């Protein structure tokens, strides 16, 4: 199963390229402030305040400032994000499991 997760990491750019080919936008309810402004004509006050609450290290599974890069570069960033995310999930999952699991 670990191998399966590894294969999924390598294939993950499908989840980036496929929506790009169809020019699909954000997931419903996950629009950025600029998109919201376009849709409504204004940014809801609370939303505007909270939207930038957290600065992610790898925003949207990419590197900051890579938004305009080509699909190739962004695919690479996507795979790196997948590998980093998987490693952290395995690490944290393992740690929690070790703490919780029956001692035998």
């Amino acid at each position: 199963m670990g191998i399966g997760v590894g294969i999924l990491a390598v294939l993950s750019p499908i989840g980036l390229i496929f929506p790009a080919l169809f020019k699909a936008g954000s997931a419903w309810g996950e629009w950025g402030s600029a998109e919201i402004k376009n849709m409504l004509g204004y940014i809801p006050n609370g939303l505007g305040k909270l939207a930038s609450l957290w600065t992610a290290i790898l925003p949207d599974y990419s590197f900051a400032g890579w938004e305009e890069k080509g699909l190739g570069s962004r695919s690479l960033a996507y795979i790196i994000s997948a590998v980093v995310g998987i490693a952290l999930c395995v690490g944290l999952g393992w740690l929690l499991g070790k703490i919780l699991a029956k001692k035998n």
Partner: protein
Amino acid sequence: MHIPDGYLGPVTCAAGYAVMAPVWAIAANRVKKTLEAKQVPLLAIGAAFSFVIMMFNIPIPGGTTGHAVGAVLVAILLGPWAATIAVTVSLAIQALLFGDGGITAFGANCFNMAFVLPFVGYGVYLLISGKSEITSFRRVVAAGIAGYVGLVVSAFAASIEFGIQPLLHHTAEGQALYCPYGLNFTIPAMVGSHAIGFGWVELIVTAFVVKFLQKQEPDLLRPTLLQPVVKEATK
């Protein structure tokens, strides 16, 4: 379905954490009683699987995207409480490192994807699979339907959280403060897109992996984990 910061007001965010706090506590307790040391790697891989499967965004007509969560599969392999832990881990990494899902909305996101999804899915799986053989085709069908129903119900939960915002919070002039769309908009959008599109991805992924494990590692599909819980519950 990863609600970002700013879409849910303080009431809903607090409610999300308030509901999840005891759920996390019970989940930790259940897992403590049932998780065998040799299952620890499976819990870790379950979290990683859920993480990476959520990166597979699928576009659907209407210009929106979505994805499967993999939570029902983890529930079938380790039980729903362990799935709560695994998907919470995955959602935490997504929120903190990748900005996918808000910090304030983390409780609500965990409620939808780490609690409602694995529990509804697991219930459907038990109901349909019944006492059928571990390697029976009925279990493949059960797993697929469980994934589909679980994801659609969890999208429904998210649509309620989104949709009550205009009722809870608005300016004196009626401008929205958080999510601007009401239930009449959020329910069709969220439930519709998951019923037409992403639910089928969860269905295929869950059924495919169960089918694969029936051949390769049928022991993983035996619900031994639940026995202590069932025994305890029936005492």
